[in-house]
């Protein structure tokens, strides 16, 4: 298992590195690729000794350096973090709910967050308490929605899976309608609410990446630590309990951790669909069902996926930027269908 883990995680990391190279090389400002890399390499401590002096006089006046370091690099890092958060959350939800259709948005977090964001945008309160207004409010409403869903599903100290998913669907439908209602009330030239619900990583910065980072790190640790329990969950809750798993505690921890990651990601990037659904499945099709491998590999592949999707979103129709959520769905759905079809024709019958 350890060999397998090293192999897959190593492979995924190599893929991530390639994607970061690609993501950093393209952007709206036509900074030559050579210069981009020289700016980046000079950020590594002591690199000056190896590479010789900087080609340009030290940074203060050079806009290219600002562009690469402040705008592009932070966006790339944020894309990787958001992708990792969503994919981890997806792996967590699918594992603990034993439902292949579960994804970070099943439990209504995204629509709850959207209600908060839409409300602020509708009443022009986006900068009410600075640029963090929308992220913090949507985080709070997202979490409140989860609380509501869990409350609905909780009965006699237990949470039935079917009830939980149904509560999620009901709440999601209701809040979705509320967002649509606010969209119809809005009368600005460009409908910002719609754009928010389609997700974007544009014009975020290092501070946004800093907000998501702790959630991803803690979430990854928590889910990896629960990897064994999640494997036993696949046998069914009762069997898992007989094998010594604290079923309710595991469920609670995994759900809360996954939701926190989702809410953090959604609050900075808007709604980016399909990542949490597709990535864990994709990883499972390749590495097998062992959650101890699926969870860490999903995190890395999720980062790769969102980063590449964001690069396409930025570059494909430049100067127009395609909403990120649209790109992730465009790539994700056909690719997922292809994998399913391929697996079917091979006749493999393992359940994911």
């Amino acid at each position, binding site marked *: 298992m350890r060999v397998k883990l090293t192999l897959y995680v190593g492979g995924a990391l190599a893929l991530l590195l390639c994607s970061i190279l690609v993501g950093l090389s393209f952007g709206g400002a036509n900074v030559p690729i050579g210069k981009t890399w020289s700016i980046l390499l000079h950020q590594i401590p002591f690199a000056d000794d190896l590479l010789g002096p900087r080609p340009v006089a030290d940074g203060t006046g050079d806009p290219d350096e*600002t562009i690469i370091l402040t705008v592009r690099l932070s966006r790339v890092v944020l894309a990787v973090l958001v992708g990792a958060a969503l994919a981890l959350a997806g792996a967590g939800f699918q594992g603990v709910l034993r439902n292949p259709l579960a994804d970070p948005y099943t439990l209504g977090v995204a629509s709850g967050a959207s209600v908060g964001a839409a409300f602020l945008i509708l009443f022009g309160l*986006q900068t009410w308490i600075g640029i963090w207004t929308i992220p913090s409010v949507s985080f709070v409403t997202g*979490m409140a929605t989860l609380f509501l869903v869990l409350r609905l599903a909780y009965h006699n*100290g237990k949470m039935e899976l079917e009830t939980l998913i149904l509560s999620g669907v009901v709440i999601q439908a209701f809040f979705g309608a509320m967002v649509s209602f606010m969209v119809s009330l809005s009368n600005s030239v460009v409908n910002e609410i719609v754009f928010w619900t389609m997700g974007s990583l544009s014009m975020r*910065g290092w501070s946004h990446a800093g907000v998501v980072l702790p959630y991803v790190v803690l979430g990854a640790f928590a889910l990896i630590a629960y990897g064994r329990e999640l494997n036993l969950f696949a046998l069914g809750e009762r069997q898992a309990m007989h094998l010594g798993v604290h079923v309710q505690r595991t469920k609670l921890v995994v759900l809360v951790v996954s939701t926190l990651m989702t809410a953090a990601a959604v609050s900075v990037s808007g709604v980016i669909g399909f990542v949490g659904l597709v990535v864990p499945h994709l990883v499972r099709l390749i590495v097998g069902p062992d959650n101890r491998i699926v969870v860490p590999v999903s995190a890395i592949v999720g980062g790769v996926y969102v980063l590449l999707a964001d690069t396409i979103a930025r570059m494909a129709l430049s100067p*127009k930027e395609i909403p990120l959520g649209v790109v992730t769905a465009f790539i994700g759905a056909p690719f997922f269908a292809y994998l399913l079809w391929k697996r079917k024709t091979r006749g493999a019958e393992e359940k994911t």
Partner: protein
Amino acid sequence: MVDKNNNAWTKIGVWILVAVLAIGLAGCGNGSNGSDSNAGPSVTASASPSPSASPSAAPSETSSAQESGPAQTTYPLALTDATGTEVSFEQAPERVVALAPSETEALFAIGAGSKIVGVDNYSDYPPEAKEIAKVGDMNTNTEALLAMKPDVVFAHASMQAKVVEELRKLNVKVFASDPKTLEEVMAKIETVGRIMDLQDGAKQATDTMRAELKQVTDALQGVAPKRAYMEFSPGWTVGSGEYMDEILTLAGGDNVSKEKTGWFEVDPEAVIQANPEVIVYAHNSEFDLGIPTAIKERPGFDRIDAVKNNRMFPVDDNSISRVGPRLTKVLRDMAKAIHPDKVK
């Protein structure tokens, strides 16, 4: 059982509280410098429309035409509108509906305000327009509109293509326009004047516009344009080929996004690289668009000259976003902002 239940809820509550506090703290740290940066120069007063009676006299070449007596429209009048449809008028329309704020403003400017029986929800200028019955937003309430029995409906061709088509199926006479330049806006106002048999009113309106335009172009004769960036809606700017780019250019700005066309979401990298000297943004007095705060908070934007030197100026959101008679006023405001030493 009950105890266990409560215990679990307490746990969830604590988790959520911790998470909310964490993000709340992060928010406060950055929020504080965001809120006081809001105190930009308050130029709201100058953005509000100046009195329509412009002190500057009409150009001399037009005054000779005025002497030849009031121009009359001869009916029947057949015109082809922006959708390529021929619209004919047997007599001057008495009951008019305007489906876009730009059309409402044009009608009022030529003196046809009293003939308007219905407007869309966004028509709020001049103030009298607010008193007129409403017929809905982008989705026009067809029943309400039909009940008004309009002789003609004025609409925006590209933004309301579907509504226009639908109304025509119901045998409602629709005249749709889609001006792309300042010249076309003035031509549209004159066409509306012909339709309404108010050619003098239309001429007065366009003369005022031409005078305002001339005032700006005269003042900026031989003045080098400044690199300028326009944000008309949070995160959106304009490239060449649109009237807003034309206005910005006429105001002595060199649009940093001119190499691209149409309306699009801002590419922050490109703006930082272009390093605009002046930023012009839309400001709505009733609705906080939050553009200047957003600009200052964007990563890397603090390196832009306009932000460093606090050369960011608001223009009236409604005037700049409507292809109506106030475009030249907003042009003058913009020119004042970009070249304060040249345009008074």
